[in-house]
């Protein structure tokens, strides 16, 4: 147990934690925007997967810098968001079914595209020379007296996208609560009839938020396939999109809450990374189960609290 404590409070664990949280956080922010506009985005998983593959494939093109590949991954997610909006709003399909269709499309389509790109390998893109997102080096912080080395250990070496993800929380918060468009978006999600009557285009706002949602999920996918692992493997998101959906619900539909929820799930994903080295008697299957079990437990516990709050409010 002592080793676990030492590990958890080490700088190395913190770096792992940020690494596992980043894709989750980006997808959670995407899910949050869609959810607040009243469009539950269950396709985060498929959007992440597509973003991951697109980013990897674009990065293998000679002469393409890494950030173009990342933008391509974002774009792929955004296109899926647009597709989702088209079927859900133009063709009036149930948005949850559309989301699952997108997931099926992504699960099959990425393997298909991977096999095409690698010449038959349906497992990984390991034979393709894909690029990685660079880490941000802040070793100059060591110059600060006393706390310098600690600061460097904790803050240096994260992916560029980790900083982007952290900033995106602030950006999403600012957008939602400090701009008129954010107010529109929340209004559309809360009670669509009122903004409709006020002449605010409800479906256009939902379409835009699904596009933004897809872009953020695609960005998370790019982080997964260009930093956490370098290269694409089949089904590499492994439920992260669904966990992100859980984080949206757990985070009380607020950016800060979503950040905390993503950090919670990211912590347990980091456990999946470090536990096998510490406790080799725990079966790896049990360790891999942890994030999913924690998600269910967190969801159940939070829902109990939310229901009690609702009951209290009703009692008043």
């Amino acid at each position, binding site marked *: 147990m002592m080793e676990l404590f030492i590990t958890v409070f080490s700088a190395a664990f913190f770096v792992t934690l940020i690494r596992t949280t980043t894709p989750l956080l980006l997808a959670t922010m995407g899910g949050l925007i869609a959810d607040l506009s009243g469009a539950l985005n269950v396709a985060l998983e498929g959007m992440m997967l597509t973003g991951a593959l697109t980013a990897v494939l674009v990065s293998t093109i000679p002469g393409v810098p890494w950030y173009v590949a990342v933008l391509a991954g974002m774009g792929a997610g955004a296109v899926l968001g647009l597709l989702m909006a088209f*079927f859900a709003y133009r063709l009036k399909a149930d948005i949850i079914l559309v989301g699952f269709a997108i997931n099926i499309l992504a699960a099959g*389509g990425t393997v298909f595209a991977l096999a095409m790109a690698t010449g038959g390998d349906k497992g990984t893109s390991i034979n393709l020379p894909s690029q990685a997102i660079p880490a941000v080096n802040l070793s100059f912080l060591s110059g600060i007296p006393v706390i310098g080395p600690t600061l460097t250990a904790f803050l240096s070496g994260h992916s560029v996208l980790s900083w982007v993800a952290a900033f995106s929380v602030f950006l999403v918060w600012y957008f939602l609560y400090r701009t008129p468009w954010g107010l529109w978006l929340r209004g559309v999600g809360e009670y669509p009839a009122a903004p409709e009557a006020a002449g605010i285009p409800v479906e256009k706002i939902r379409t835009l938020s699904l596009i933004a949602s897809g872009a953020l999920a695609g960005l998370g996918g790019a982080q997964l396939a260009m930093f956490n692992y370098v290269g694409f493997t089949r089904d590499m998101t492994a439920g992260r999109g669904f966990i992100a959906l*859980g984080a949206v619900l757990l985070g009380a539909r607020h950016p800060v809450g979503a950040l905390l929820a993503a950090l919670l799930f990211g912590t347990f994903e980091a456990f999946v990374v470090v536990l096998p080295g510490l406790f080799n008697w725990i079966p790896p299957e049990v360790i891999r189960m942890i994030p999913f079990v924690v998600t269910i437990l967190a969801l159940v516990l939070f829902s109990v609290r939310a229901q009690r709050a609702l009951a209290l409010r009703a009692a008043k």
Partner: protein
Amino acid sequence: MSNVPAIDRSSRWKAVRSEVGRAVGALVIALAVAFIVVMLTSKAPFEALDVLLTQIPQRPRTIGLWLDDVAKLTITGLAFSLVFQARQFSMGVQGQVYMGALAASYVALSPIGTTWAGIPLGIVAAMIAGGFWGFIPGIAKAKLGANEIVSSLMLNYIAIEIVNLMVRTNLPKPQPGVLTTNDFPATSVFPRLFDNDWLSIPRLDIGLLLAIAAVGAVWFALYRTSWGLKLRLVGHNPQFAEYSGIRSTFIMVSAMTVSGALGGLLGSMFVQGQSYGMLIVLFEGNLAFEGILVAIVARSRPLAVPVVALFYGYLRQGAQLMNIRTDVPAEVIGVVTAIIILLVSSSFSLNFIKRWFKRSSAAAPAPATAGGAAK
């Protein structure tokens, strides 16, 4: 049925015809897209399509594979139909399949498995395990308000890991290190349906009979019992159901549990069927989720589910053959699946396409016709 007025019956046929038309239209569009993808990526596109569409009826073996898939797709389609009719988006069939398979394997590999009871008890154990796995997201939603989509999906991943763990560490296996169990004793493996001199179809086992029985049972439960009436009411109009005193939480939980039992049954059909006769990790090959397509195209009607499964199973096996014999990966069928779900679950219709073409060819919009078609 005798007192159904004739006018009602004819309008029902009209509805059936338009649904079939939509499904066929969606299928044609999806196949056309798949054809374009194959044309762009394959060196021998016409050969690939030939394998996809014409090879199955030519050999008993491929017919057996196809009908075996049809039986399984029917069960997963029924499981999704049940929860969709109650408007619950429980996505846990995959996990229920794994838990059911695990329970069936424990029965089959125990001393019971070598007796006549191996098959019936295996099925019952699988259905109980699957039902329990379906009950969890149901009760979590009804009592605690936890979103059933997320919790059922999480349970899928957990079930897969539990099966991995048990196969690796607990169940008897031929040699250490392999991720399969021992072969089940012959008394615990479903017997083949046609296995005589003049007709022998490999792979096809009594799972097909189970699927047919399940169709009848689900139809009866939904349309001839008060439980089914309440379930459909909860699905169609939850507020009305609430006002008329139906305990919607009970209906919700029971629908998810029964659907879970069907998922468990499918698990037993996988491992006790002719195709495996043992438990292998990750045996299910994403078939469970394809029940979404079957249920949606069948409009969650139990009697339509096997018909849809027949067609979709044909495409699915055709894609597997295409994967083996040509350079086109079977995953291209995922594109077809997604397009069919998108088109059938939306307000897409042949009229819509006509209108769309009209609108894009003649720039002047025709609001009167559009309004008429929308009705």
